């Protein structure tokens, strides 16, 4: 086993920022807005670094697809303990239409090239909430997948994954190489330590173009319109339970 883990990290608008829709409804305002690493990607990086600290794997490679600024996101992963980074350059129009299908093709190509033992991704990104990249990557590679992981245990060439599902928790055992996606309760990501921030400066980030990996970035999706959620309407106070039932029937709720 190569002992190499690929971790995907996505640069998204920071979770604390108040999102504003562009006046032409073509998307959201991103210029001058604070961006940071997708929180689920942070959890994925933390899990990979923990596996390395337990000496169960040998190398953590952080991958990000996007414009120049994605390198900052890779550097944050390096400061958390990843060993090296790969920046897949996607800019301009290609970046605007970049989605899970293209990213999973890129991740699959890199996983093969790097002979990865595991690919760990966040379960979804907080900007598009697609929750597809992990599953698509596994399918393209024909690898097993452990998604919505709240617990991961690596044992030789097998991985035990406890998954958070609607009904509760499901435990599965899959063989490596495999794709895992991190859910909220998998771990609590560490704050980068200052010595690691200094060391991150010296770690390498390789530059790769999607074409080099044989990936076609054409999107099959077209965003027609982006709107704000509807404004919350005021409620109505009623006096009795009968009134309440009446009102609910009136508005067709029951």
């Amino acid at each position, binding site marked *: 086993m190569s002992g190499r883990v690929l971790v995907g990290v996505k640069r998204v608008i920071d979770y604390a920022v108040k999102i504003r829709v562009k006046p032409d409804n073509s998307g959201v305002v991103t210029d001058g807005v604070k961006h*940071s690493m997708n929180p689920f990607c942070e959890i994925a990086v933390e899990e990979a670094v923990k596996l390395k600290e337990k000496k169960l794997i040998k190398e953590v490679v952080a991958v990000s697809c996007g414009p120049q600024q994605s390198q900052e996101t890779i550097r944050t992963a390096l*400061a958390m303990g990843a060993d090296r980074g790969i920046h897949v350059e996607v800019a301009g129009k290609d970046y605007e239409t970049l989605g899970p299908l293209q990213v999973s093709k890129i991740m699959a190509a890199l996983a093969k090239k790097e002979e990865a033992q595991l690919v760990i991704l966040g379960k979804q990104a907080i900007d598009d909430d697609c929750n597809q990249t992990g599953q698509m990557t596994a399918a393209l590679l024909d690898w097993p997948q452990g998604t919505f992981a709240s617990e991961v245990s690596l044992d030789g060439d097998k991985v035990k994954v406890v998954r958070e599902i609607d009904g509760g928790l499901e435990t599965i055992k899959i063989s490596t190489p495999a794709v895992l996606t991190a859910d909220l309760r998998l771990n609590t990501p560490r*704050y*980068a*330590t*200052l*010595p690691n921030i*200094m060391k991150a400066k010296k770690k390498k980030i390789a530059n790769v173009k999607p074409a080099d990996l044989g990936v076609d970035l054409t999107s099959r999706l077209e965003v027609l319109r982006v709107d704000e959620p509807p404004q919350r309407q005021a409620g109505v106070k009623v006096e009795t339970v009968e009134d309440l039932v009446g009102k609910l029937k009136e508005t067709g709720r029951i």
Partner: protein
Amino acid sequence: MAALFKARKALGLCLSGCRSLTQLAELPDTHQILRQTCRDYADRELMPIAAKLDKEHVFPAKQINELGAMGVMAMEVPEELGGAGMDYLAYSVAMEEISRGCASTGVVVSVNNSLYIGPILKFGTEEQKKQWITPFTTGEKVGCFALSEPGNGSDAGAASTLARQEGDEWVLNGTKAWITNCWDASATVVFATTDKKLKHKGISAFLIPMPHPGLSRGKKEDKLGIRASSTANIILEDCRIPLGNMLGPRGAGFKIAMQTLDSGRIGIAGQALGIAQAALDCAADYAHKRTAFGAPIGKLQAIQFKLADMAVAVESARLLTWKAAILRDSKKPFTKEAAMAKLAASEAATYCSHQAIQVLGGMGYVTDMPAERHYRDARITEIYEGTSEIQRLVIAGQLLKEYQS
């Protein structure tokens, strides 16, 4: 030949000036990541509890441990001794971000870094560094600095605490006042007179573990601000320590104290910047949300002028702080700039927190908003580690030296 040397020297100065200038305008990459990391920590772990820490006067032990794990409690200390091995520019950036979350936590960090570890790192023997610095890098233990006395603060040369040698021990007697971290510290750097006839040249520095026989701590002061950090007297009554606990040469105490405070000023400037920025953030956010006369109050010129003046005060103090830090990191003289930074930043903190309350109106006066805490926290920055009056004397002294023919 001489002209060539002069020209090359001038070019060198110009280039190093350019490098510093670029650093002033934009922090280097590592420092930007550091700033973001500290800001995230302050936003998530300090800001939510700052009001509670202040109200209940609780020392943030868990947070200090976490900051220690990150390397923030010993930023300048080399990695071999357990520190983060970073420069003073990084330290001043970290201080600002931490203090923006909680000013009390900021002062605990500052005292440990600049006032306790600082002099030991500079003047201690290798053995002293291992014994007195390494355990204090993780956040598990913090140190303190005992210079002021009930009888003298600004008049540091008049230290009445005495140290006499008895065989293979030093015996200390006296009282030290206003010691930050007092009740939470595990060691202190103490200044005492070893030779009264030599006046300020007869003061020496000592290292004392806490607790220790002969050392007792006075009652916790009930302060206006930075209440999560404990402040009290240290009383020394025939306190006996080994001879090896003297820090630096005999009689060098005053020099050690002054040089330590020079660097400490940059840390406190960082703390004051954090408080000023937090006050500005509070006011600007309120200006967007509060409506009066039919529009957000941010549309009114009176409010805009206040916010603009606050922003200028903070940014100019920040650049002074970064400059002082860069000069120190380049091993150039920085006494004047450090005093200017501390003066500017502390006055910016009191100005901004005062104006922030004004912008918030009645809401600024109640504990529901953090503005009143920033106002109370800011006040001390103009007093400790050298009052604003002392800073002016230091600046004038350095300035006049430059003009001497």
